[in-house]
């Protein structure tokens, strides 16, 4: 069996939980009672060292510096013997925000996009603003037109669509047919703070309808999962006793497409390894 190399492009703005997920994923891989486990030792754990230390004590980790971009390579294997190496990045989310704001893609980002086999888009629905409009909240009479062009805010939904369009363009992918590769996995992070029931696809369709249509019409089989890497909010300086005693690997869950909750947060990534083998 050939060893697959899964290079994951994690796409997410600041504060969506990239580092927390990375650290929790790594912890599970090392402890090794999940669908995916570490087969050997990771080349470099440094990027997640701090986050893992903080979580072990039950504290949230600090914000990743804006300019940081580090990749670590993890040799992984799943229960059915499929193995591969996972390239997982950690970076400051401002870089993604800058891509959108400055409308240009740095050369390093192009290389990352080109080498990625799978894209994982992290969205924290709690921080997405949705504004009411004339149709969702009608009024009887419209106000007078503003003479000077008022400053308008671009909706978060269209920002995310633009981001994906930019990355698709940079990766040199055409729009003609639905895409199989690179695969797209959407993780709705911090699921615990949403307080919703139901399957993640429906939740996303409801909250980000246009983005959902775009993803559904651009990828053949986009996957949407709900993810809570920490299971409960942690503070940066006040340790959580339960965490410290039971260990961070006992926390976190994933909501599958059918709405069932499982504790194994490696499943969304394990799926990518399995998918690749089928092709």
């Amino acid at each position, binding site marked *: 069996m050939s060893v697959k190399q899964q290079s994951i492009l994690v796409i997410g703005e600041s504060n969506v939980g990239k580092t927390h997920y990375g650290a929790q994923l790594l912890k599970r891989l090392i402890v090794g009672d999940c669908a995916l486990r570490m087969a050997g030792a990771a080349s470099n754990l440094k990027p997640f060292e701090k986050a893992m230390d903080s979580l072990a004590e039950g504290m949230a980790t600090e914000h990743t510096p804006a300019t940081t971009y580090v990749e670590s390579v993890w040799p992984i294997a799943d229960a059915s013997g499929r193995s591969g190496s996972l390239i997982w990045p950690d970076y400051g989310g401002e870089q993604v925000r800058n891509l959108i704001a400055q*409308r*240009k*893609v*740095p*050369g*390093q980002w*192009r290389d990352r996009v080109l080498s990625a086999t799978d894209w994982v888009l992290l969205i924290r629905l709690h921080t997405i603003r949705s*504004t*009411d*409009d*004339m*149709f*969702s*909240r*009608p*009024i*009887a009479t*419209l*106000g*007078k*037109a*503003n*003479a*000077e*062009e*008022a400053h*308008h*805010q*671009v*909706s978060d*939904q*269209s920002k995310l*669509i*633009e981001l994906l*369009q*930019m990355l698709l*363009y*940079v990766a040199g992918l*055409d*729009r*003609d*047919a*639905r895409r199989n590769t690179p695969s797209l996995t959407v993780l709705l992070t911090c699921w615990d703070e949403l307080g919703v029931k139901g399957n993640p696809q429906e939740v996303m*369709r409801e909250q980000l*309808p*246009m983005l*959902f*249509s*775009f993803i*559904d*019409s*651009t990828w053949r089989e986009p996957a949407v999962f709900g993810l809570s890497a920490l299971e409960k909010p942690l503070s940066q300086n006040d340790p959580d006793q339960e965490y410290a005693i039971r260990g961070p690997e006992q926390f976190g869950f994933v909501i599958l497409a059918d709405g069932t909750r499982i504790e194994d947060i490696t499943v969304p990534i394990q799926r990518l390894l399995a998918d690749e083998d089928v092709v």
Partner: protein
Amino acid sequence: MDSCPHCNCFAPDTTCALGNMELSQCPEWKGAAPEVTTLDTEKDDILLPWTGSALGLTDLSFVTGRAKPIIVGIAGPESAGKTTLLASWYLLLARSLLTDKAWQFGGSFSLEGWEAVASALRWAPGQPPSFPPHTSSRGARAPGLLHVAFRQENEQLRDFLFADAPGEWFQRWAIDANAEDAEGARWIAQHADVLLLAADRQALSGSRLGAARNAFQLLATRVAAERRGRPVALVWTKADVSIAPEMEERIRQAVTSVMPDAAEFSVSIFPEGTGNTGVGFQELFRWILGTRRPSVQLPSAAPSGNDPLFVFGRR
């Protein structure tokens, strides 16, 4: 670095258009010897071929490259609600209410342009929705084009461009087809695949209703003369405003007498009852999606014998 002053030459980026191997020997070349370029990390940035704002003629080729998009032109006098129509479509699109599963939103290269158009109809903190600001003409040669793509059930992606044109263009164009400041209206008349004629019910029932009727009749005649068989729809905007039945009949007649196949729609942003999609926007948009460009009819070739190899032989 200096570039070559010759209009067709892009030296030193390319070789000399006049064929001189050494730039210094070219009579046109005035620049210094090209420096050795160093790879700067900043220069490594990739710029995108679209800006997100409404497309102009220069960046249009990025969209038109894959196939000719369907261009929808909305003709109508000033403040007839042309921009509101576009804004309403975008707001419905943002909530996935505009189209059904058969036409799935497949991206847009002018998202910021759409957002700018739609922002007036959104609730901002402490500010209720208002009419979109007047679309200014600035004497442009072509309207700003808003792009949107839809993927059909058969996986095909179709691009649509909506022209956001100021009303003055059409008013002048209706009176003089060759008017100097109606260049943009001519552009739409020449390139649009679908034409919408906006009839402003508010103006047609207001204090200057006679002038409004006259202007509309002129515009309808002009559109009829220029349409070359393309689909046209009469769109009653501000459908919540009632107008005299006689007036309604006159306007309809102005369109149907010269374009008997014209479709007719009514739109309003004020919902009827408890609906949250306004009135008529979805129906009009689906009609646009359903329009087709006239296709080429190939003459049928009758076989002249039984031998399949010589089916198309001479008679």
